[in-house]
């Protein structure tokens, strides 16, 4: 579901394998400090400098299909 963010992560599905963090060219993804209900640290998306270009490499490498990627539409 789109919540207005470019990258949405379903935190309950995440198992913190770290593939998305490794393959994100912009360094926008990081591990959380809290755990999800299954006991895993999950991935958080933080695009403070607005560097994300919706390349979707994170979603491409996610074994849990927990990442959805959106792009701003051109006006």
């Amino acid at each position, binding site marked *: 579901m789109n919540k207005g963010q470019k990258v949405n992560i379903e935190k309950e599905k995440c198992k913190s394998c770290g593939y998305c963090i490794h393959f994100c060219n912009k360094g926008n993804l990081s591990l959380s400090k809290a755990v999800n209900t299954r006991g895993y640290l999950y991935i958080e998306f933080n695009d403070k400098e607005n560097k994300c270009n919706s390349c979707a490499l994170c979603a491409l490498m996610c074994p849990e299909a927990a990442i*959805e990627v*959106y792009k701003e539409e051109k006006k």
Partner: protein
Amino acid sequence: MKAVYTKPISLTETANSYCPGCGHGLVHRLVAEVIDELGVRERTIGIAPVGCAVFAYDYFNFDVTEAPHGRPPAVATAIKRCLPDRIVFTYQGDGDLASIGTNEIIHAANRGENITVIFINNAVYGMTGGQMAPTTLEGMKTTTTTKGRDVKVAGHPLRVSELLSSIEGAVYIERVTVIDPANVIKAKKAIKKAFQNQIDKKGFSFVEVLSPCPINWGLKPLDALKFIKEKMMEYFKLGVIKDSTNSKESK
């Protein structure tokens, strides 16, 4: 906001039971994306193996049956022959396909059954706790080869794709991996071709995926990807091993 990537409809909402960094989840996703793109979800039947992927029926949002211990090719044969309009594929690991069910896969290929086989090669028995598989690399430590695989005792790792390539009935065989985005895209292309061959009635298509098993290899997920790149890909060469889809008349 325009969607760039969303979860394929052919996957259910169920969170999978695979370990962190496991390649099964990735390949499930690729299969689901391909089924979505080909628009055949309503008439697809998958056959799950014994092993970690035994619960595949919980994760795929289409019909999946279960045939343990290497028998999926036999069950796929029956389903495809009774219901020729369905898209039938088996999803098998190396313990299931290369060891317990070697016989089944060889004869299904030899009969040239018009099915698709997705073969996950992670060089180890995953579900049972990391024992040696036929595909385990020389010198690789597993719970049954604690000093590393000794080829004098256990033989050399089995290259199933090359083995099957000598069979006339197999029309398309490719080995791919899922260690980085470029290879994931290639893997998806190979899987799509394997399904398209079936739709075009070309015959037996086989895709081997070198897949990480971080837990049983005793490595962190990213180190497991490195292990595939440095060790597995040296022995199991990537690429199209056989493709006679253009020369072969459709059955």
